């Protein structure tokens, strides 16, 4: 048992931290980047590609680095720490992860190569109006005719859907089940908009839009579920990075801001609440690290369980820390020019994109009778 990063992993973290710190260490830069479409900075995206980050989890044959969940988690944490708006999770971990898991060799080379090189943004069009966090699709349907497949229906919200060069789309199959397709967005109608945290999403409408089955086609529900679970675990790390920043910003503020002639850390009513934020953060970190280690070699069921557990803990922590960070800052925490509130906004978006705490609690509660206790060590 060992919870330490090795030297290579530390080196990866250092270079990602340096790159993103340079880009967004000054929060004004982040505000500028998210003010204009596509909601992130193309040059930072390219620099991430040069560092190998955009191909990190893909096999070398697909143009990637062949790295595992621990490396992905380190990047996600650094992305969260500065709230980098580049779509690492949505594009690399989720959409890219699906192509890596289900695509044919040709598709992997065609989609993941350009993605890893920063030349192409891939998005996963999966969520549907009125839907929640199911791994299946119902509102978009796939039909096959003699010369191929066509999709009909609406996907929304599609993270980074308007900017995407390639769409991975889930659709209800005529034979039942949910299939995955590659779609050229030119054949869709897209309306993009800003999300409250500065990110981007879109409504994507398919009307007889030509689509290519990903890999062998067929029901991909299990593949989608596992890709979502892996993304959830990485998202927990992104949240850890964001919460670490918020706790640090809050303690700095408490030691510098003066009221009644003294710094705020004079008041135990405030410092105790900061201590509770630390407790929440450390508990969330422990469970998230564990989930990442489970996901290295775990079965899909084990990964699903670990993802639900980490997501629940991070949901509780991110609401607690996100809300308290604003409160302990007072009015300044409410302002758009100050960073801390944007982090709360992002943590909220992250959770509702991939499944909120109640969703995961409900999953865990439904199988509470299946086991006596949870043993974290295999």
């Amino acid at each position, binding site marked *: *048992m*060992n*919870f*330490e*990063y*090795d030297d290579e*992993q530390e080196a990866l973290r250092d270079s990602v931290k340096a790159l993103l710190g340079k880009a967004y260490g000054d929060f004004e830069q982040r505000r500028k980047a998210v003010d204009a479409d596509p909601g992130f900075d193309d040059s930072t995206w390219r620099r991430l590609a040069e560092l190998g980050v955009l191909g990190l989890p893909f096999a070398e044959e697909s143009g990637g680095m062949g790295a595992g969940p*621990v490396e992905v988690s380190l990047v996600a944490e650094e992305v969260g720490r500065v709230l980098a708006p580049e779509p690492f999770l949505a594009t690399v971990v989720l959409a890219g992860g699906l192509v890596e898991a289900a695509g044919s060799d040709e598709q992997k080379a065609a989609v993941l190569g350009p993605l890893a090189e920063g030349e192409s943004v891939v998005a996963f069009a999966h969520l549907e109006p009125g839907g929640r966090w199911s791994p299946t699709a119902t509102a978009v349907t796939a039909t096959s005719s003699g010369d191929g497949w066509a999709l009909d229906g609406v996907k929304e919200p599609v993270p980074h859907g308007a900017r995407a060069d390639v769409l991975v789309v889930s659709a209800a199959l005529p034979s039942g089940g949910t299939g995955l397709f590659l779609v050229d967005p030119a054949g869709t109608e897209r309306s993009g908009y800003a999300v409250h945290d500065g990110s981007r999403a879109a409504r994507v409408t398919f009307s007889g839009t030509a689509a290519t089955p990903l890999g062998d086609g067929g029901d991909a529900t299990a593949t989608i579920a596992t890709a979502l679970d892996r993304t959830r675990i990485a998202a927990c790390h992104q949240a850890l990075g964001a919460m670490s920043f918020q*706790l640090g910003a809050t*303690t700095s503020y*408490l*030691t510098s801001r003066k009221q009644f002639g003294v710094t705020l*850390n004079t008041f*135990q009513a405030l*410092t*105790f609440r*900061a*201590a*509770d934020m*630390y*407790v929440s953060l*450390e*508990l*969330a970190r*422990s*469970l998230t*690290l*564990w989930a*990442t*280690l*489970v996901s290295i070699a775990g079965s899909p069921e084990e990964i699903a369980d670990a993802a639900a*557990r980490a997501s*629940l*803990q991070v949901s509780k922590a991110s609401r607690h820390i996100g809300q308290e960070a604003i409160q302990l800052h007072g009015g300044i925490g409410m302002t758009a020019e100050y960073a801390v509130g944007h982090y709360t906004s992002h943590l909220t978006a992250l959770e509702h994109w991939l499944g909120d705490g109640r969703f995961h*609690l*409900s999953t*865990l*509660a*439904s199988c*509470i*009778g299946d086991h*006596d*206790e*949870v043993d*974290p*060590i*295999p």
Partner: protein
Amino acid sequence: MRLELSAEDAAFREEMRTFFTTQVPQEIRDAVASRRELSKDDIVRSQRILNAAGLAVPGWTVEWGGRDWTPLQRHIWHEEMQRACVPIPLAFNASMVGPVIATFGSQEQKERFLPPTANLDIWWSQGFSEPDAGSDLASLRTTAVRQGDEWVVNGQKTWTTLGQHGDWIFCLVRTDPDAPKKQQGISFLLVDMTSPGVTVRPIQLIDGGHEVNEVWFEDVRVPAANLVGEENKGWDYAKFLLGNERVGVAPVGQTKRVLAQAKEWARAGGVLDDPLVAAQFADLENDLLALELTALRVVAHSADGKPHPASSVLKLKGTVLQQAVSELVVDIAGPASLASGATADESDVDDWARVATPAYLNLRKASIYGGSNEVQRQIIARTILGL
């Protein structure tokens, strides 16, 4: 990064599991499992079995019966013991006074006290808190005045847990009332509780039990040789002791076990199907998992002997979860919990349900002792967050 135990640690875990589940008498383990109060004899018997196998005081130096284990192995030992419903070796002996004597005591003190302390031939009590010295322990007022070869002790200690069984008591006493700082005038003294002038008076608690006591000292004469380490350095030894106390104070294994039992009780009572109850189980189970993993992070990283910063989290969250699980058990028992005053002969209600509320009330202590949770927050805020 690696989750699996090494082959060596996995074998160690198996060895501990086998020992605890086969060598400690079933009736003692059953009593722990049904949350009944253990007799002094049960506690002594269990500790002697562990001691004979070298498993009572692994944290001590090897010379005095300790084991050269890694922090992770010590954690596994502690968890497996709780998992198997084996009583933890008496904390006053095994994790408080023993390590202090082994680390700071004279050779004579080590030879005289350590073997019977490990074997629970001496039952130690703790004489730290006083009526006016709780969280502010250093303001204690019990005095020891040197007269020839003896110290003469006067004052009052309180919250002395299981003091009714105590043979000896280790006390913090004020030996220099004029020291510039109140922490500097304190010494660590070992007192035979059969000495004339020592009086133990029970304190009844809200759970109806007699667990803690007041201990009065009236002109109690203590041989000078019973002072541990240096005169007026007692505060350092107390900090050392409390540091040890905090690490073992998050009873993760025990809380997990009670939660697993509670699931059975809830199932039998038909309340596990209630989605609100199921959600509460799931939430507590997840918090406990996070706590257990935090404990593992702490032990995996504390090889250099320095406590991991997250260790205050263990005491704080560990006691909160211990209390929350005990609260859930009362809710599962429901109206049956009102049979708390009945003996098994007088009531059809199961043991666990009869003790549910007394256990819940009793465990309110957990966030108060061993450095209250407010003190833990203070430690986190000051030492970790720099506030």
